[in-house]
């Protein structure tokens, strides 16, 4: 049952990732302008914000829970956000490593208020994850897997919508993979120099 659903959801994500029939693609092309608007990228109301939710600058990261660099870099990003104190950190799930990544993203987004905690637990894992690894990490963090799956079931439209939107945005930006960052209005399609990122944040704040 779950596997079937997972497969379907994965297909939906794969859809967004490119192997799609022409029709929805054209529709998306027309929507591209809206999709890349600052509101859609920085202030998607359905994507939870970490750091200081009322911060004056938004830092967006497109990431995958199996991407090694996303995880090694995460403590540095968190430190930056903590030290600055006025950054909204928006972690955008872009699951590119197959079903386990998608599963992780879905359960973390299903955690609602505790999204933050679920995300940290998953970011602290080894790079390669099986679905069991995902469940084990979340269980250790105090989550009940059945409860998360149930929450996902109730909230599927929102969660799958977020993931599809994120993936689509990443594609529209021409990102080759994860991680990719947007600090204010500066796009970092690869691994950023932290100094450059700080500069971009300062610039965003100045404007």
């Amino acid at each position, binding site marked *: 049952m779950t596997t079937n659903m997972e497969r379907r959801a994965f297909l939906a994500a794969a859809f967004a*990732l*490119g*192997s*799609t*029939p*022409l029709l929805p*693609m*054209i529709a*998306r*092309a027309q929507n*591209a*302008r809206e999709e*890349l*608007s*600052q509101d859609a990228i920085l202030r998607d109301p359905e994507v939870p914000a970490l750091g200081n939710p009322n911060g004056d600058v938004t830092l967006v990261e497109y990431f*995958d829970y*199996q*991407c*090694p*660099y*996303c*995880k*090694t870099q995460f403590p540095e990003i968190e430190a930056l956000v903590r030290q600055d104190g006025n950054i909204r950190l928006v972690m955008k799930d*872009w699951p*590119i*490593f*197959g079903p386990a990544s998608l599963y992780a993203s879905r359960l973390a987004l299903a955690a609602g208020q505790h999204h933050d905690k679920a995300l940290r637990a998953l970011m602290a894992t*080894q*790079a*390669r*994850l099986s679905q069991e690894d995902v469940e084990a990490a979340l269980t250790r963090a105090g989550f009940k897997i059945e409860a998360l799956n149930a929450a996902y079931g109730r909230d599927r439209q929102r969660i799958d919508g977020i993931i599809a939107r994120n993936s689509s945005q*990443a*594609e*529209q*930006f*021409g*990102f*080759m*993979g*994860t*991680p*990719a960052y*947007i600090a204010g*209005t*500066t*796009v*970092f*399609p*690869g*691994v*950023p*120099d932290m100094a*450059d990122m700080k500069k*971009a944040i300062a610039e965003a704040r100045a404007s």
Partner: protein
Amino acid sequence: MRGLVQSIGVVIAGFVLTAAPALAQPNVPLHVDKAFALSAEQGPAGAVDLDWAIAEGYYLYRDRIELKTADGASLPLETPEGEPKDDPYFGRMEIYHGAASASIAPSVLERLGDGATLSVTYQGCQDDGICYAPETKSFDPMALAAGPVAFGETASSPGDPMALLGRELSQEDTRSSSASGWSFAQDAPVTARPAEPPSVVSNLPEEVSRAPQGGSTGIVTDASAGGLVAGLVSQGGAPFAIGAFFLLGLGLAFTPCVFPMYPILAGQLGRVGAERSAVRGALHSSAYVLSMAVAFGLLGVAAAWSGQNLQIALQSPLAVGLVSALFLLLALAMFGAFALKLPDGWVNGVNRIMPNGRGGLASTAGLGFLSALIVGPCVTAPLAGALLYIGQTGDVALGAASLFALGLGQGVPLIAFGTFGSRIMPKAGPWMKAVNIVFGFVFLALSVWMVSRIVEPWIAVGLWGLLGLSLAIALGAVAGGETATSLKVSTARLAGLVALVLGGTLLVGAAAGAKDPFRPLEPLTGGRVVAGGQAPLEFTTIGGPADLAQRISDVDRSRLLYFTADWCVSCDIIEREIFEDPAVRERLADVDLMKVDLTSVTPGHDLLMKQLSVVGPPTMLFIGKNGTEAEGTRAVGELSAEGFLTRAGRI
């Protein structure tokens, strides 16, 4: 002679490598098609081979390579074992650096209908950088009969609406994203899918990328590199060219390339009992040299047929291991028949395979053949010239004849050695036994020498140590306490004791992880006792065309590109005599040093060699700041430090 050899280096002139366009800054990941350049071609026996040339600093996951039919059914794909990567952040997995390959078995392809499309999906990362989204390329396996297909980013797209969309969006997108107020850090590509020239497998400068894949017409190398044979023919016709190759061979006969052949021939002469007869010696050494020359000719035929240098293809662990085993058997045969009391079963078994004393000319010829192809594979300027000539003109007959003549020329001193060497042999008597033991050890040493190309360095050091101890035993160093009875016996024991000490030292070194049999105690002395006291020059390793282009655009210096391999005898000489030379080191201080290690050849290496018209190691390309190979500077085979400095002076 030397002048002629050197002038050939000049004749084999360079070609133009235009400067690569400036790529984005280091942190900006390469486009997926540059990071993992995929090409597909028909492999042996109806298989389809997929090859990725992976840029330096990027890797592909083995378990993320998938093959599917158009309707999404998974198909089996054979992939070689990858490098294990197992660390706290990565977890456990297998990855490929430099190059990767996958093979679709003929049985899988047979089950597909005509016109079936396959799609291959793959995924990788940049070291300490981004992980790419999965990339999918579709192709028609049947269409590969017409020739290999390289997947540029547009090559894959005709049926791919996403790619189409990417291009349609690209102009609008640029405007719309800037209209939305996005600015890209680090001059990154702004379009969803930056436009690229179609079907380019590498991102080498265009002329080079368009080089003939199999080598028939093409880049500027034609006129120059193939010019050796063509030039000789125009001077005096084909017979003149063949004669010249014979002379060139003579010139090469006293280079380290040919040295390993002497102990092999000596051992073989001893084995067949021809070491004391000038006539038999001449007969056997002629057979040896003739088949060696035939093997050279065969290299030409193989090059025409496959576009590859057979010598390199034969440096596989299997071939090298088999030859090593052959030498071991030959050694045992010598011991078994004359010296050691080996178990009868062994002796009989060995004698069945290696009949001793009555070995025919055929076995000598066989050794000559193997020597040329596997034991002492040497890429020299004339050899490269002839192979390139064949590749470019398709004139197999003249090319192969020239190579045959080259082999004969290289062998003349061997025939002299085999014929007149008998004069210095002691006449029959009790010494005969000793002589056979010596030849046995010659074969043992050859066996260790061969196998050291394919085993861990410390194992090779250990094997040399064991060889030393065996020699000590054979020489009586550890025999019973009876006092030495004669000068001969004492001398033998002294030599045996030396072998004992050396062998023991090597074993100690091996246990400590020594890598160089000439410096067995290096790990114990913390590397303080390094002969010459110089650190080796540091080279950037290039895995394929994409790597090279990246490096050329990254580093703004004049450059040296050096093709080498562990099994390349001349390379050792170059590394000792040229790269240790103070004047050379000083000259190279501001040169970007790059090397291609052909010890195990990857598809990326193949591509690079084809594109640069390199036949094998040692080959050096002197490349200017602007990415142009300096005219007349290419060095193939051995050269002197002066020759090196002259060439380096032109970049």
